[in-house]
């Protein structure tokens, strides 16, 4: 099994068929085409979208519905084509596709962590390909506050 260096978990062994292809890369990282999604019990529910070829290129993701459970993903025909899905189709979230959003840690420009609802990562689980599908109606810096609607989060258990 091939091995790769990761930003957060040192060296990791991965199955060759566990990779996802982003044929155009994503904006800012156009040369990175192959990613693996890593998840560990200790860091649940965070997912780590790690480039296979560059250790330092790693994104922390959360399932979009964990951030906004009313989130509505809109895929254009161009997005669907890039995901090898039929035009005008409505893929089933969780079954056909996975939608997750990048988390940005707090820093000089933001007092608390944020989630990028504007540019979700969408992958076709069967074809194992992915894109970043821009959603202009959502914020690229949605604040992640742990006190936000705790009752609502409990209610969907």
């Amino acid at each position, binding site marked *: 099994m091939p091995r790769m260096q990761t*930003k*957060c*978990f040192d060296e*990791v*062994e*991965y*199955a060759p068929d*566990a990779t996802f292809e982003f044929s155009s890369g*994503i*904006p*800012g*990282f156009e040369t990175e085409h192959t990613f*693996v*999604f*890593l*998840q*560990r019990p200790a*860091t*649940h*529910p*965070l*997912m780590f979208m790690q480039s296979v070829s560059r250790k*330092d*290129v*790693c*994104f*922390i993701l*959360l*399932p979009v*519905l*964990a*951030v906004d*459970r009313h989130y509505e993903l809109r895929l254009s025909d161009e997005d669907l084509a890039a995901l090898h899905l039929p035009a005008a189709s409505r893929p089933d979230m*969780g079954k056909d596709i*996975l939608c*997750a959003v*990048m*988390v*940005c*840690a707090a*820093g000089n420009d933001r007092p*608390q*962590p944020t989630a*990028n609802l*504007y*540019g979700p990562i969408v992958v076709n*689980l069967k074809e194992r390909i992915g894109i*970043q599908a*821009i959603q*202009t109606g959502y914020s*690229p810096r949605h604040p*992640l*506050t*742990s006190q*936000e609607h*705790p009752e609502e*989060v*409990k209610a*969907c*258990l």
Partner: protein
Amino acid sequence: MLVMRRRAGESILIDDAIEIQVLEVLGTRVKLGIVAPESVLIQRKEVKITRDENITAARSFEHQDIPLLLSKVSSRAVSADVKNLTDVFTLTTKST
């Protein structure tokens, strides 16, 4: 902000070097043609916003920041539909 009304076939000039032509107006969409020197970077604003945010997100954390980040998000972690949604086993490598 300067606001101008233009019809299809009309143009706007920015300095002498940049011309923005309105090629077609169809429903809610406008097709623009842009003539500019090669040194001028032209991009969709969505892509610029996404690129900046991607780069910031990738640089925003190091390994040791993860526990703090986790403490901020853990309360939203536990819902059952999240588990269904991610279907973690299709994604996770069996790393130890």
